[in-house]
């Protein structure tokens, strides 16, 4: 595996081995060892052409725990914001000897463009491209679900997950649908019809417009962020109505199955798609998602930067 661009490129076995690797890395770094020499001497560039502090620091922490040199190249103050083309940026990174580029970009497909071009030779990690995918987020979500509800199994067979909200514009939803289905979970998308893409029928997920009819039957409720600009684009009448039908509040939470968990990729709009009581409740694993993000991203960097495919067995 050379790049991580889309969950579609991962086999089930590869996905599970990333989760297993993350698991071991979490144990190592939860223990006494804070820093591993694994990627010593390798250079990882965080190319963030779109603001995302949380994803960037998560990747940065992951790279640093593996002793890689990290260069941050973010939109503000860099040439990316001055209209430099992706090509020129890539050629600069190549000249700097980047072994891997972690790219966040507002254009769907930007990571793939970088990987497919001859502009640079390093590995490319998609840290969110437009409304396309966010594979590391899906992997950390699957990791978190498996930890809580996996019953020691390697996949998510038998589990039900509802993904609720702005599916149309969500790269988190796209990656999660692909990954959770690949791992055997049953996925239901819950959204107003305006926030589902035309063509969603071809996704490995079912669709519902009625949150209340779905919520009692799922093991995981994954809430998606509603961007402020959707309000002005007439996807729904107003925030209050959205909240009433698709928000997760304590009343709705009461109808959840015992043991079911609440997730959110962040940043949250408290009071819109999720109420403060729910976000801070014992069902919420939202802060744990952040913690797990570092281990999962360590695993991704480890797998990509040590070349070849993952083989089983020690020695």
């Amino acid at each position, binding site marked *: 595996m050379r790049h991580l661009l889309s969950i579609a490129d991962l086999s089930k076995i590869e996905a599970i081995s990333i989760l297993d690797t993350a698991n*071991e*890395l979490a144990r*190592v770094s939860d223990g006494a060892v804070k820093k*591993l*020499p*694994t990627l010593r001497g390798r250079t990882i560039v965080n190319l963030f052409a779109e603001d995302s502090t949380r994803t960037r620091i998560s990747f940065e922490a992951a790279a640093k725990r593996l002793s890689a040199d990290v260069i941050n190249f973010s939109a503000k103050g860099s040439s990316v914001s001055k209209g430099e083309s992706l090509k020129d940026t890539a050629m600069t990174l190549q000249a700097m000897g980047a072994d891997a580029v972690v790219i966040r970009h507002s254009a769907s497909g930007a990571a793939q463009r970088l990987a497919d071009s001859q502009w640079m030779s390093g590995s490319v990690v998609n840290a969110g491209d437009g409304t396309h995918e966010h594979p590391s987020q899906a992997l950390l979500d699957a990791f978190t679900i498996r930890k809580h509800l996996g019953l020691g199994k390697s996949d998510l067979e038998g589990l039900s997950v509802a993904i609720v909200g702005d599916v149309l514009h969500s790269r988190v939803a796209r990656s999660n649908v692909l990954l959770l289905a690949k791992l055997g979970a049953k996925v239901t998308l819950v959204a107003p019809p305006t926030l589902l893409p035309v063509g969603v029928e071809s996704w490995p997920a079912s669709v519902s417009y009625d949150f209340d009819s779905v919520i009692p039957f799922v093991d995981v409720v994954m809430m998606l962020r509603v961007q402020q600009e959707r309000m002005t684009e007439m996807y729904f009448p107003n925030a209050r109505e959205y909240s009433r039908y698709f928000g997760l509040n304590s009343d709705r939470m009461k109808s959840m199955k015992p043991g079911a968990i609440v997730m959110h990729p962040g940043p949250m709009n408290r009071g819109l798609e999720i109420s403060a009581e729910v976000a801070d409740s014992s069902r919420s694993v939202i802060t744990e998602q952040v913690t797990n993000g570092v281990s999962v991203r360590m695993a991704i960097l*480890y797998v990509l930067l040590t070349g*070849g*495919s993952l*083989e089983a067995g020690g020695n």
Partner: protein
Amino acid sequence: MSVALSAPDIKRALTRISHEILEKNQGASSIVLLGIPTRGAHLAQRIASIISEIEGVEISCGTLDITLFRDDLRLRAPKAIMPTTIPPSGVENRDVILVDDVLFSGRTIRSALDALGEIGRPRTVQLAALVDRGHRELPIKADFVGKNLPTSKSQSVRVLLSEIDGRDEVSIEGEAN
């Protein structure tokens, strides 16, 4: 292919190593056995149970995976990471005995020393290997050796253990030159 150690040979060698460990460390009170996965971990378990039998006490025994500390990660396909389990006693001020199946270039042991250094500061670190086949590339030597096996570099030493392979045997494959 020739058999270098049979199952009874292995048993005798581990028993001898166990006695030597006890002798050198004046008993079992301070020792921690750390096996290097996969087969070193099983060997450490066996030595621990032999020592327990002799001394009548539980021996601290764990595993130390060295994958993330290897110096050849850039060249090889990534290996799955195996568990590292440090016994509750920890390693601080203890006599840590690293256990591996075959001692060859010494690079695995160097990685293990790095890994151990991240975990704590033992009083001493010692090394037990079932087989020492020579060809060291680093200044490392074993304190306890089951058997010295002179080999050529082109040969390979195969260790089978009943926990994984269904039987115990050490053999040499390939021609000596």
